């Protein structure tokens, strides 16, 4: 129990008569890199949407470090420590790179200062604003985005936009990071770079990461454990080698 970061118990959701996800049981331990894989339409992103409060699950429950968060509001879940990226990139396009990250830092107590201080621009305001900027730069440095910090995020190349999304999510200081197809559309070189960054985040932030990915080389090279979904139900669970070679899984991917 002690080192389990995320636990889901029979988590499920139906839209009308469609059971998009059923009886999902995950146990993700601290510092684990956990993969969620499965064919298109298997319900992977739906799982993310439940874990971040976009959808309220219709059955089951989930717990972050033992605290139940089922059906809580999105910003509450984020404050409790689950942050995510999106399958189709959703950056704040018309804001600079560093500001995107600063929005992520927005609600952390260490950068709070009372409205009075910020309205009248007292020294405390500049101090906390400066602290926030420094922190944002630090995070960007991890992703090699520091030199791009004053560019508009919509002008970044695709691979860098993906990295910026992870940086923004990391800025909210989560306990669990959800990455929705982080390597989608990246070239092999960028994918390699991304794998190193993800490992770096785990090692330096003690981060637990749950990721959805179609690139099996990426998954088996990075993840300690995977769960395979198909039509909303769990097909297999285990180490990448075990789960991906499961006959059921091969059948689901190739058909037949």
């Amino acid at each position, binding site marked *: 129990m002690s080192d389990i970061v995320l636990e889901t118990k029979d988590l499920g959701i139906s839209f009308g008569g469609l059971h998009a996800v059923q009886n999902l049981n995950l146990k993700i331990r601290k510092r684990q890199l956990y993969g969620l894989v499965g064919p298109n339409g298997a319900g992977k992103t739906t799982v993310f949407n439940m874990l971040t409060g976009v959808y309220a699950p219709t059955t089951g429950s989930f717990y972050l470090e033992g605290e139940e968060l089922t059906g809580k509001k999105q910003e509450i879940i984020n404050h409790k420590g689950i942050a995510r990226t999106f399958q189709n990139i959703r950056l704040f396009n018309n804001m600079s790179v560093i500001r995107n990250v600063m929005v992520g830092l*927005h609600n952390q107590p260490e950068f709070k200062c009372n409205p009075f201080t910020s309205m009248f621009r007292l020294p405390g305001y500049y101090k906390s604003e400066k602290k926030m900027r420094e922190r944002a730069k630090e995070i960007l440095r991890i992703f090699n985005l520091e030199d791009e910090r004053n560019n508009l995020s919509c002008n970044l190349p695709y691979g860098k936009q993906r990295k910026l999304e992870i940086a923004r999510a990391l800025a909210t200081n989560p306990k669990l990071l959800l990455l929705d197809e982080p390597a989608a559309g990246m070239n092999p070189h960028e994918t390699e770079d991304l794998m190193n960054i993800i490992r770096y985040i785990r090692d330096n932030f003690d981060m637990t990461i749950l990721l959805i990915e179609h690139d099996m080389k990426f998954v088996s090279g990075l993840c300690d454990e995977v769960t395979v979904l198909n039509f909303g139900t769990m097909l297999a669970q285990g180490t990448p080698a075990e789960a991906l070679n499961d006959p059921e899984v091969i059948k689901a991917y190739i058909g037949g």
Partner: protein
Amino acid sequence: MSTILDGLSLGAIYALIALGYTMVYGIAKMLNFAHGDIIMVGAYAIFVTLASTNLLLALVVSILLCAVTGVVVEKLAYKPLRSASPLAVLITAIGVSYFLQGTAQLIFGSKSQPITLPSLGSIQIGNFQVELRTVITLGVGALLMVGLTLFVKCTRTGRAMLAVSEDKGAAQLMGVNVNRIIMITFAIGSTLAACASFFYLLQIPSVSPTLGAMPGIKAFAAAVIGGIGSIPGAMVGGVLLGLVEKICTSIPVLNPYTTAIEFGLLIVILLVRPIGLLGVRRREKV
């Protein structure tokens, strides 16, 4: 020269109101047609408190009352409809507008009543005699707009506002409390409307329940001309519309057609540039 200054100060009034429309649209993605009536609320607040106290206190009361009205309207009427269709919200806004007008009519009657503001006189700038109210309107209006721009650009809340206006869902998932941001937006918009109502009374010193309708609709036009959702757009649109109005009324031939020309301008601009002067074309993401 004095026409231009009058136009600019009327433009500043329109711009202040237009900012309320455009901010609410940018952040809550709704057209708040009751915004014009907030001006009326502010005007009556000044009218009532001025009878017993001085002008400064009346202004404070008016600003507070407007901010509270804006926030309460948002909480009671719009918040329950956050996920409803835009048309339902639009109709609700029109309903709120009539509700506010009706309430004012019940309390104060439907006749317009004159209000006596301390006369401000005029000052000499170079060779020109300029009325002080014009200078005040222009100065304070400009100050408010600069302040708002700085607020949005440089503060945490401003940054959160920009984030919400770009992608509400993503902002929420990054820990921004969207409901709080929308509430703040309404409070700021209504505060600006309260200031506008004072400047409006300086120009036309009488109050009536439908006082907010015309400046409201013109400021809405100004917001659309500038590109709704864009803060600098609302300022540019407001000033442009104010200038056109004052120039038209100063030319005897055009005077009767002033309003037609203003809204004609709106149509022409929308034909040429449907997103408004400073609007941003948004890519729809699939």
